[in-house]
Structure formats: structure tokens, C-alpha cells
């Protein structure tokens, strides 16, 4: 409850700040607020607080909340430029914070209404943010496509929810789990259809493969800061939402026949996502688009992780998200800086970055290496945990395929690294960034290294 109040309070506060002419205050307040939020979550660990019976702040919920707050914190530092426009500053702040509320709800819901509201609260501000570069046709188009398809997907989400409701007679996850265990199969068709539809809808939000068509366009069209937001926090939200449903209903009774086949569908989606995301990413020359497809590939990995979840192993997804988001946001950070200076999103804009600013190149490399899954960065363990589950379930062939596909990932990430380190820059001037930015960049990179070196240290808090 405290977290919810804090986040929404911050959002409202940033609206109020506009009225009382305190725009300068918003930024530090938000940063402090997010820190406080992390603190509150850490303090709540183990309490299992329930809010009106609709939310349950168990450890996994808090873990996702902490993750989202952390990423949001970094994002706010990364996207500082995005908030430089004085006229709209409080709008942007409040929208971002409100969508964080959505993430929180998705991370902790125990009732399907909160799933639905969470998805919407998460999405609606992002629709707007995607179009926040109002006079840019690309941004418009991004917002527009994202909105139309998002609304379309929420229709499916709702249909799924209503089917489950019809089959169970309740929206509570615990009840759904209990009912789905019952032997008689009268309501089973409804349950199956419902779960499938919810899967499709959330797969859409996660940009998993048959539902991924929006992602590259939207990611490319939206302002780069917002793309960073979408590819990290929105994904956290969607994954957390799906994770809760899956763990709460399916993983608890994973021996039940129906859910095995459900897992199979999930597995197919995940595999397709990994393959298509990575293969198409390898053909891209626009970095935003490349990162978009790569994030599709990572979504596939996450889905694979979810589909393999067993009641005892809960942490893979969280850890994957942690590593992926930090790495991704680092890459976007550098992209934002480079894009601002060169006005280009092409790989060639990165030519010789190592000469122009070694810190930027280093940071980008750390991010990309982590996403490529090179130890000892966080991305390695993320993939490692997933693979462990996959092999543990006996899907050896899938593991082999996934590993081969991730080599493609190595290919396109290294394309950028080669450009940075081995190619000659188009212009020889150095690309300077503030010392504070440098410091944070190094800190975050080191953090990514540390979570790779000591994954247990972070996981033990929550799982």
C-alpha cells in the first residue's frame, strides 16, 4: 500500500509542481522518491502484506517492484534530456510515474481486475509518451500503431478474463488455481480458452513473436528515451503480470494435464520469438531497430524461462529481467547520447566511438556483451538460469537450438562493438559527457558486472 501511495503520490506531485511553479524540484523529488520506494519494498520483504485482498506484496512482487524502481531510477538519469522541455515537463514526469504504478500493480495483483487495470495503467501513459514528439510523423505513427494494437490486445485480455470468470466464478487467482484443479471438466473449455487468450494478450505486450509486429515500428518511431522505457519497464510489467498468473495458477499445479499443453504452447511461442527476434535483428542497420528486435529475442528468452518455471525455481525470470534491463538501458543511454550528437541512428554513427569517448564505448560494450550472454556479466547468468531449467526439463534439443540462436545474437552485438572499436570515426572530435554521467555509467556497468559475479547475493533477498 505504501508503495502504491508513494508512486501515485509522486505522479500527482509532479502535476502539482507545475501549478505551484516548482518544476525544478520534480527531478530530485522523483529520484528521492524512487529510492524511498526501493527502501520501502526492502523493508516490506517477508511481510506478505495484502491490500484490500487485491494485491499481495509477497517477495516476488516486491522483487519486481524493486526491479522496476531501480530501472526507473536509472532511466530517469538516462532520459534526463527528455525532460528538458520546460513546457511539458510535469506531464512527462507524471505519465512515467503513473505507468510505474501499473508495473507495481502487475507485479503484485491477486485479482484479475488488477491485472486488467495494471496493464492499462501501464500502457496508456506509454501510448502517449510514444507520441510525445508531437510534430514528428514517425513518433505519431508509433503512438498510433501502439495504441491501436494495444487496445486490440486488451480486448483479447478481457475476453480471456471473462472466460476464466465464467469457468471459475471468481477473479481471485487463488480461487482460479483451486478450481482449475477440480476433477470435473465442465468449465474446462472456458478455462483453456481464457488462459490462452490472456497468454496472447500478454505476449503482445511482451512483443512475443506472432504478436510482435508493432514492436520494431514503435520502438523506432518513439523518442529514443521512451524506447528505452518501453523496452525495459513495459516489459517488466508485462512479464511480472504474466509471471504472477502463471506461477499463481499454473506452476502451482504443473502436473495437471492441461497446463502441460499450455506450457507447450508457451514454449513454441518462446522459441519462435527467440529465433525470429535474433535472426531479423542480425539484418538491421538502424540501431534502434536492432535493439528492438534484440529485445524481442530477449522476450523470447524470458518466455522460455516462464514456460519452464517449476514451483521451486522462481528466480530465473526476475534475474533475466534484471540483467536484460540494465544492459539494455546502458545501450540506450549511449545511443541517446550518440544520436543527439550525430542525428543518426545508424550503426555507422558509432564508428570509432572508442576513440571519441572510451567511456561511452566501454559502457555500450558492457551492455551489449551482457545481452550477448558473455560471462561474467549479468546476461550470462540470466541465460544460464533459463538454460538450466530447459535442460532440467529434458528439452535438450531446444537448449541446443537456443544456444545456436544466441550465437546470432553475438554476431549482431559485435557488429556494433566492432564499429566502435575498429572503425574510423566520421568526425574526429571527441564526444564529451558530463562527469556525473560518466560516474553513473561506470557505476551501472560495475553493477551489471557485480550481479553477474554474485547472482546469489541479489536473489537471496527475494527468493
Amino acid at each position, binding site marked *: 500500500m505504501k508503495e502504491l501511495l508513494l508512486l501515485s503520490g509522486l505522479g500527482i506531485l509532479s502535476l502539482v509542481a507545475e501549478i505551484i511553479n516548482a518544476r525544478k524540484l520534480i527531478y530530485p523529488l522523483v529520484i528521492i522518491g524512487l529510492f524511498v520506494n526501493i527502501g520501502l519494498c526492502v523493508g516490506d520483504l517477508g511481510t506478505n502484506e495484502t491490500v484490500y485482498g487485491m494485491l499481495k506484496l509477497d517477495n516476488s512482487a516486491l522483487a519486481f517492484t524493486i526491479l522496476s524502481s531501480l530501472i526507473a531510477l536509472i532511466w530517469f538519469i538516462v532520459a534526463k534530456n527528455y525532460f528538458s522541455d520546460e513546457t511539458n515537463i510535469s506531464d512527462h514526469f507524471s*505519465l512515467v510515474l503513473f505507468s510505474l504504478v501499473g508495473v507495481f500493480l502487475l507485479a503484485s495483483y491477486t485479482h484479475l481486475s488488477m491485472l486488467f*487495470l495494471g496493464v492499462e495503467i501501464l500502457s*496508456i501513459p506509454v501510448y502517449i509518451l510514444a507520441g510525445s514528439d508531437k510534430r514528428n510523423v514517425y513518433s505519431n505513427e508509433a503512438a498510433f500503431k501502439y495504441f491501436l494494437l494495444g487496445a486490440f490486445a486488451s480486448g483479447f485480455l478481457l475476453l480471456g478474463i471473462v472466460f476464466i470468470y465464467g469457468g471459475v466464478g471468481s477473479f481471485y487467482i487463488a480461487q482460479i488455481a483451486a478450481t482449475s484443479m477440480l476433477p470435473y471438466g465442465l468449465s474446462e473449455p472456458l478455462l483453456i480458452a481464457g488462459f490462452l487468450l490472456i497468454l496472447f494478450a500478454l505476449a503482445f505486450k511482451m512483443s512475443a513473436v506472432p504478436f510482435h509486429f508493432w514492436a520494431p515500428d514503435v520502438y523506432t518511431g518513439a523518442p529514443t528515451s521512451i524506447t528505452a522505457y518501453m523496452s525495459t519497464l513495459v516489459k517488466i510489467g508485462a512479464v511480472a503480470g504474466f509471471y504472477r498468473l502463471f506461477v499463481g495458477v499454473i506452476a502451482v499445479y504443473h502436473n495437471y494435464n492441461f497446463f502441460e499443453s499450455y506450457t507447450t504452447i508457451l514454449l513454441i511461442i518462446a522459441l519462435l520469438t527467440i529465433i525470429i527476434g535474433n535472426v531479423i535483428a542480425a539484418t538491421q542497420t538502424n540501431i534502434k531497430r536492432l535493439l528492438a528486435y534484440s529485445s524481442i529475442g530477449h522476450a523470447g528468452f524470458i518466455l522460455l524461462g516462464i514456460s519452464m518455471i517449476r514451483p521451486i525455481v522462481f528466480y530465473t525470470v526476475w534475474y533475466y529481467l534484471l540483467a536484460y534491463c540494465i544492459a539494455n538501458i546502458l545501450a540506450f543511454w549511449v545511443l541517446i547520447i550518440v544520436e543527439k550528437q550525430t542525428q543518426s541512428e545508424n550503426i555507422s554513427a558509432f564508428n570509432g566511438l572508442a576513440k571519441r569517448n572510451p567511456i561511452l564505448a566501454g559502457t555500450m560494450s558492457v551492455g551489449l556483451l551482457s545481452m550477448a550472454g558473455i560471462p561474467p556479466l549479468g546476461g550470462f547468468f540470466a541465460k544460464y538460469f533459463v538454460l538450466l531449467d530447459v535442460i532440467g526439463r529434458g528439452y535438450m534439443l531446444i537448449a541446443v537450438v537456443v544456444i545456436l540462436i544466441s550465437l546470432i545474437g553475438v554476431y549482431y552485438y559485435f557488429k556494433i562493438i566492432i564499429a566502435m572499436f575498429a572503425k574510423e570515426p566520421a568526425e574526429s572530435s571527441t564526444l564529451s559527457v558530463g562527469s556525473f554521467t560518466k560516474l553513473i555509467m561506470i557505476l551501472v556497468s560495475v553493477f551489471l558486472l557485480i550481479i553477474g559475479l554474485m547472482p546469489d547475493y541479489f536473489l537471496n533477498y527475494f527468493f
Partner: protein
Amino acid sequence: MYLSQYIFFFLSGLAIASALLMILDKNPVHSVLYLVVTFFAIAGHYLLLNAQFLAVVHIIVYAGAIMVLFLYVIMMLNLNKEIEPHKQQLPKVAAVVSACLLMLCLIAALKSAEVNMLPAARNSNIGLMDNLGKTLFKEYMLPFEVSSILFLSAMVGAVFLSKKEIH
């Protein structure tokens, strides 16, 4: 045949027919009006299901606010021209086929579905204001509060998007 069945078929026919007309009519204004008719048919179903409160709210929200907004935008942007000159047939066919497939799949899957009745069912007054209010403000307090955030963000967003930029 019972009276309720006649009513059901009438309303369903109306709803489906006008929904189809909505997507088939070239003129957006007509589409809006057909959709309004569909909404009225659905409201009729609500009444049939003894959910008067919801029926009225449905009319107020959908017919009274949302569709008016649509109409407003169509009129303001002058979209009544037929902007779809012609497009390739293939996507159209694909659209029809996939939608029909979806329908067939769902119907086939759910033809034997049965709702899971709670023991305390058969309370026909659930649609009444009192019961709804009690549920809303006791059990569903949090979603109620949270939806205010949703509204706030939608409001901020809509204002932000339609604000003219000052240069």
C-alpha cells in the same frame, strides 16, 4: 418459445446486424450510428439480465459520451469522405478468413462450456444498485481508487497531446 427468447433473438439479431453494418458501411458517421444501435441492443440485453443499473450506465458512458466523442471527431476532422478507395483483395479475404476462424475456434471450444455456479447463486438482485455499490466499495475499493490514476493519466495525456505547442 418464451417471451424472453423472443426478446433475446430480437436483441441479438439487432446487435449483430448493426454491428455488421457498422463495419461494412463506408460512411464513418453511419458506422457510428450503427454502433450506437448495437450498444442499445446490448443495453437491452443488460435489462434482460436484470442489470438495470449497468444498462443505464452503459447508455450514458458508451452512447452518451464515447460515441459522441467519436462522432465529434469525425465531424470535426471531416472524415465522412470515403477514404478507402480500394485496396488489394487479398488482405480483405485474409481478414475475413482469420476472423471467421477465430469465431469457429472459440465456438467449437466453448459449445459445451458450462459456468461454474456458486452455491449461493440465484440471487436475482445482484444487478441492483445497492448490491453493486456494496461490492464496489467494499471488495473492489482498490480498483476503484486505482482507476482514478488511470483517468488522471489519460486526462494528462489527452491534454498534453492536443495542446498546441508554443513557438
